[in-house]
């Protein structure tokens, strides 16, 4: 009887530890193989189908139904270019030139990774929607305050941005840490 209890305890504790490790390292944990370019982070394993068992599990959790690197490369950030955590109470300016891809977009997500509610439905700016100056540079405003154009709407609280490159140039996959990506500067906070 005592031995049976001990075996039950071994099974229960072992199962809890095993599942706990999966939750901690695979589901909550960061993906292996991350790359940084300024404030932007990406992972070329997203959308891949090879790799070992742990990588496949991580790709399934973090990049479900994502496309491979020749179709789309996804960069994301929850920090500005000076390393400060992105805060919905502040206004930011995203400036740069068109990244090397057939099409690109920058989208804001709330802390829960879903779109930020706003009546104007200004969830993103893109290669087609953004306006450029004589030097081919764009400057989009990320803010709770309403702007007539080149505007991504925020709400209070933490948020993150995703930059999608559709059919990126071969140079992006070859060296994802040195792509000329937009910078992200804090303008003011209220």
């Amino acid at each position, binding site marked *: 009887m005592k031995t049976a209890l001990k075996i039950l305890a071994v099974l229960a504790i072992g199962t809890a530890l095993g599942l706990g490790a*999966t939750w901690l390292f695979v589901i909550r944990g960061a993906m292996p193989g991350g790359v940084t370019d300024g404030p932007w982070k990406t992972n070329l394993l997203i959308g891949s189908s090879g790799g070992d068992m*742990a990588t496949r599990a991580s790709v399934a959790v973090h990049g479900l139904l994502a*496309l491979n690197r020749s179709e789309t490369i996804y960069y994301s950030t929850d920090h500005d270019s000076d390393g400060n955590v992105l805060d919905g109470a502040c206004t930011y300016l995203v400036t740069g030139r068109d990244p090397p891809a057939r099409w690109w977009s920058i989208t804001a997500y709330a802390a829960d990774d879903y779109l930020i509610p706003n009546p104007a439905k200004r969830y993103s700016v893109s290669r087609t929607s953004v306006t450029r100056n004589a030097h081919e540079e764009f400057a989009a405003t990320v803010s709770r305050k309403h702007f007539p154009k080149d505007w991504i709407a925020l709400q209070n609280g933490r948020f993150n941005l995703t930059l999608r490159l559709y059919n990126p140039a071969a140079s992006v996959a070859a060296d994802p840490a040195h792509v000329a990506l937009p910078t992200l500067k804090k303008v003011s906070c209220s």
Partner: protein
Amino acid sequence: MSAREWIGWIAATIVVAVAVHLASVWYLPHAVMHRALSKMGAVNTIHHQKRVDEHARGVVRPSPDLLYSACPFDLSNGPLEVKAPVPPGTYWSVSAFDNNTNNFFALNDRQIGGQPLELIILPPHGGVEPMHIAGRLVIRAPTANGLVLFRTLVNDDRQFAKIDAIRRQATCGTWDKTRDGASNGG
């Protein structure tokens, strides 16, 4: 309990923990895909999702600029036939994922070269041989269950109605060999 007994029980606990961890990591892609497929509705038919906004809370970080059309498939009753016109002037892709989330097929508007998509997906084993289906793109799925996913980019909001109407012409269903044979003969 002696120290030796303690070490034995602790070792047994570690063995169980490692085994459970490895099994759960191995099973995780299958569980993730099963959950995603179960939310998408009936198999072997296409579901044109409406444009993503803040109410879309199925898959994290949806793109507000893409229109998604999904066809969860079950090939146990035979091959799947997928047909779609390709909207001009924008990014479009069709991709297929197996039951373990692996992306086993992808094709975009540039690669297809202006032709409409005519795709047959064969079950992992058996079924007709690829060469017996003329004039079609034929692929074999690694697993009987999976998902075909269309992405159509709305690169210009003024073109939304036009792009949306074209992508809604895509169809997906169990392949009707008899109908196909008749059309080939005629």
